[in-house]
């Protein structure tokens, strides 16, 4: 009886330990997927606003204008990020002169 009780307790501890490890690994996995971005400063200097912002015109809240603004900003980001070099896919350097 004592032995059974002891085995039950050991099993319980083992399971609790597994839950704890599983939980910890999950937390690490979530952190890995969503890395904190606020901790390291980017070092980038914000671009000064070139346009003199005056009072809003009646077009400032126009849905079409807002949509265009959002689209143009999204394109601007894509243009900055576009890969134009493809240097990883340049033809490899191989020995083409096999002679003895």
């Amino acid at each position, binding site marked *: 009886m004592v032995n059974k009780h002891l085995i039950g307790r050991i099993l319980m501890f083992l399971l609790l330990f597994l839950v704890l490890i*599983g939980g910890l690994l999950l937390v690490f*996995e979530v952190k890995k*997927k969503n890395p904190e971005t606020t901790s390291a400063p980017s070092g980038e200097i914000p671009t000064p606003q070139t346009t003199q912002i005056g009072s809003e015109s*009646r*077009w400032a809240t126009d849905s079409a204008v807002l949509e265009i*603004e959002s*689209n143009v900003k999204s394109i601007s980001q894509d243009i*900055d990020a576009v890969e134009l070099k493809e240097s990883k896919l340049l033809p490899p350097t191989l*020995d*083409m002169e096999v002679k003895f």
Partner: protein
Amino acid sequence: MRKLLPIVCFLGFFSIATLLNCYIVTNAQTSDYQKAYQDYISSLNLYRDSHFKYQTAKNEYLAYRTLNAETKAFEATREMLQKRDEGLQSYLRALRLRLEETTAITNYKENLSYLKLDSEIGWLSIHKDSIRGASSIEDLINISSQLEEKYPSLELLAYQTLGIIISARENSLRERVSTQTEKIAEKINQMKSEGENVEKLQRWMAEAKKKISTSSEKQTEAELKIKEIEVNDSSKLSSFNEAQMSYEQSNQYLKEAVSYLIEIVEEVKYGQ
């Protein structure tokens, strides 16, 4: 405590199952191109190892001229030639998948490039099989020379495919910029019809359109530079680099056009 046992069991299995699922999803997110690229890098490393062994065996054979050294040189050369074919095959596969994942490629160009790449991958497969049938170093040298002759056309195909990929990206971006330019033009027309003074906006729009047009010209220039590369051209890479500079200029003009569009939108919102 015993009543808690099923709950603890459930939690334990749930945590482990979720964790496993996380790993499976993460692995599945790796694109076909990424996998092909990793295969290519591995093949290239295997080729480099085999090339080192080939050099060592060749030097030994040339120094001692023994039968044993000859056999070792034969085996090392055969291994290196096979790895060279495998490396090139995996390179062309990675290039093919890069082409596949790039959007906005016109069907004709896409299909033609696929056909060419598939044909070269097939040729390399046959060539690799022929290496197995070689019985002497002379046989291997002859088989190797077939690829040596073929390689310039493979290089050309690679540069042409890279050009198609980069052009497709630029075309896609320019198309999006043009669509938004048209939308802004429509909005300016509407503003004009409602009595707004849009002279400044129209002038800025003309400037933005000029940038888009110059971007297109620069891209055509880049495409022409790639088209002019000849099979036996010894400076293919420098010609391709020149084309890349034109692509970058094309992209720069597109950037400037977008920056004008942002200013125009700001003017519409706050300047009227």
